């Protein structure tokens, strides 16, 4: 591998990895608090992209198709989809929260299908163009071209994740969230409004996924009802690699997965068709040998 190739694949891995990290974070937060693998999370990412596209097209009339409109779309979509996450939690997960684990897993699959099928019905399965004029200008490192858009993208993902980490570790609500994740019953006895904390977790996790969706839509230039499927799987993998339930773990897992993909597919004698073999092979290895991931703590199964 030449130097250029390494730098280029490093950049590629970081960009796609920051998307994985954003989505993995929501997966991990929800799992941390109510021990649920939220299968609807990939579809929330997709919904976020669509809401973002609608807002972008609406405000584009006044603001043009540049950064201002993208930021508007990002914030609006995070708010709307965050609320959607709260609604899903209220009606699909809360009623079965104390039922056997399998029930909530199945309602999560149901929620995923409702979002996916709803988007299919509304959009007719079409691919929508998300045409921004962010341009391709950027800096050159020897033969490698990195656009400003790509740099801003990675930076925004890091800022969002950093903000989330600060919120969880420094604020009262964050403390409540951590308390609920350790012991829900004891938290309730300590006067924590558990329902509210869980709703807040869903709001934040869904808002991050929506943010990722809008950023991916604007960056790749296309939005489609099926876009959440693979992203959901990869984000889940990233969350497991980093240690599911751990916030810094989700970020680390996302970035590592992105790098694994980009470097895995440019190894000599290995074609790009092996990319997903690396990704899901890593998932299996971690599940077998280190199910708590890189940064996760071992969780005692509560009966």
């Amino acid at each position: 591998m030449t130097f250029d190739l390494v730098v280029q694949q490093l950049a590629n891995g970081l960009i796609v990895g920051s998307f994985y990290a954003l989505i993995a974070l929501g997966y991990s937060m929800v799992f941390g608090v109510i021990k649920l693998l939220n299968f609807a999370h990939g579809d929330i990412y997709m919904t976020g992209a669509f809401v973002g596209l609608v807002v972008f097209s609406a405000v584009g009339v006044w603001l043009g198709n540049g950064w201002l409109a993208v930021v508007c779309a990002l914030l609006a979509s995070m708010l709307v989809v965050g609320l959607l996450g709260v609604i899903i939690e209220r009606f699909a997960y809360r009623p079965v929260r104390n039922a056997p684990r399998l029930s909530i897993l199945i309602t999560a699959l149901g929620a995923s299908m409702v979002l996916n099928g709803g988007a299919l019905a509304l959009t007719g399965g079409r691919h929508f163009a998300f045409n921004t004029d962010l341009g391709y200008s950027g800096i050159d490192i020897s033969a490698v071209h990195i656009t400003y858009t790509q740099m801003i993208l990675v930076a925004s993902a890091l800022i969002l994740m950093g903000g989330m980490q600060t919120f969880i570790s420094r604020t009262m609500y964050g403390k409540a969230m951590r308390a609920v994740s350790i012991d829900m019953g004891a938290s309730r006895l300590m006067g924590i409004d558990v329902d509210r904390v869980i709703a807040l977790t869903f709001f934040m996790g869904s808002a991050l996924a929506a943010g990722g969706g809008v950023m991916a839509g604007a960056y790749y230039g296309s939005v489609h009802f099926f876009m959440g499927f693979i992203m959901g799987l990869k984000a889940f993998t990233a969350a497991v690699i980093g240690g599911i339930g751990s916030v810094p773990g989700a970020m680390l897992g996302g970035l590592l997965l992105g790098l694994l993909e980009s470097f895995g597919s440019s190894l000599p004698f290995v074609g790009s068709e092996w990319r997903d073999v690396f990704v899901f092979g890593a998932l299996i290895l971690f599940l077998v040998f280190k199910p708590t991931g890189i940064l996760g703590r071992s969780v005692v199964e509560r009966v």
Partner: protein
Amino acid sequence: MVASFRKLACATALASLAMTSLAAAADIKLGIVAPMTGQLASEGQDLENAVKMAIDAANANGGVNGDKITTVTADDACDPQQGVTAASKLVSEGVTAVLGGYCSGAVLPTLKIYGDAGIPFVIISANSTKLVDSNPGNAFMTNSTGDMQAVTAVGLFKKNGYKKIAIIDEGDAYSSDLAKLTAEAFPKEGGEVVDKETTTAGEQDYSAVVTKVKSSGADAVFWTAYHAGGALLTKQLRQAGFQGGIVLGDGNNSPEYLQIAGSAGEGVYLLSPPTVDLLSGAADFKEKYKAAYGRDAGAYAALSHDAGNLILDAIGRAKSTDAKAIIEALAASDYKGLAGEIRFTDKHTLQTSNFRPVVAKDGKWVAAE
């Protein structure tokens, strides 16, 4: 409240009874199989609409041999397993003939099912050569096959002076078949395939593949899969500064490709199936389609419409709904449709290729010089 629910239930039951008896009055039932859900749901919808348009027109003119025609649609979701389920459903419904098939991968395992049942099967747009080899004799392909497309592709590479080609597919039956055929044909004409890559359908990020293609020193990229990935790949190739040519297989002919690729799509070549915009006699069809379904006719709408008329023509000539008679009539077809002539070889493929190279210019496909 309860009473009104009962009334509603009664009314619904009566209505469905009435609909069943209406359907029973028709004599010819045709099956349509297409992806109605999944990645390619939009293309499947198009196929169904265009076939139904042909059938509605025939029904308005008194049907075929005096019989009315009804349709039943089965969803294969472009997935081999769902394709088998869909085929079994159509066979158990007792359809006279089946039309459709968008993805070769989903059609391939169903050939045996229709073959065993002896049902005539008109494959509209799926065109992998594997379908030709496993045809039990009841299937007819109205789209030119992959090997004809590979010949058209190599011809275009030579004309444009491309010497080193990178070929990228999505790993499914259709795109890997076209990639393989092209990779075999190009070296025979003096060219070189410097890179061969496979991506995952539904993926958004192609940067790793783009980086490999760029470092392979290819003059041009040949993308053999579908438009969703094609548009993203085109954008990401140009974003990474790839200056060479981009050539797309026939699965990319969708208005969505040009919308999503935007300015990055300018100058891209496409091996086009006979779409409504490239056909001189299809303007009327295009308008009627838009009026009936509120959307633009997609890439295979004209071909799907022709296939609908082709089967009606064959049933008319067979003068019966006997499967063997219809298969014989189909084999003897000499039908001139919107998309060109349909005459079959003894392998039940088209006698003449219907691919033509086009190039994107000012956001539109125009015939390549």
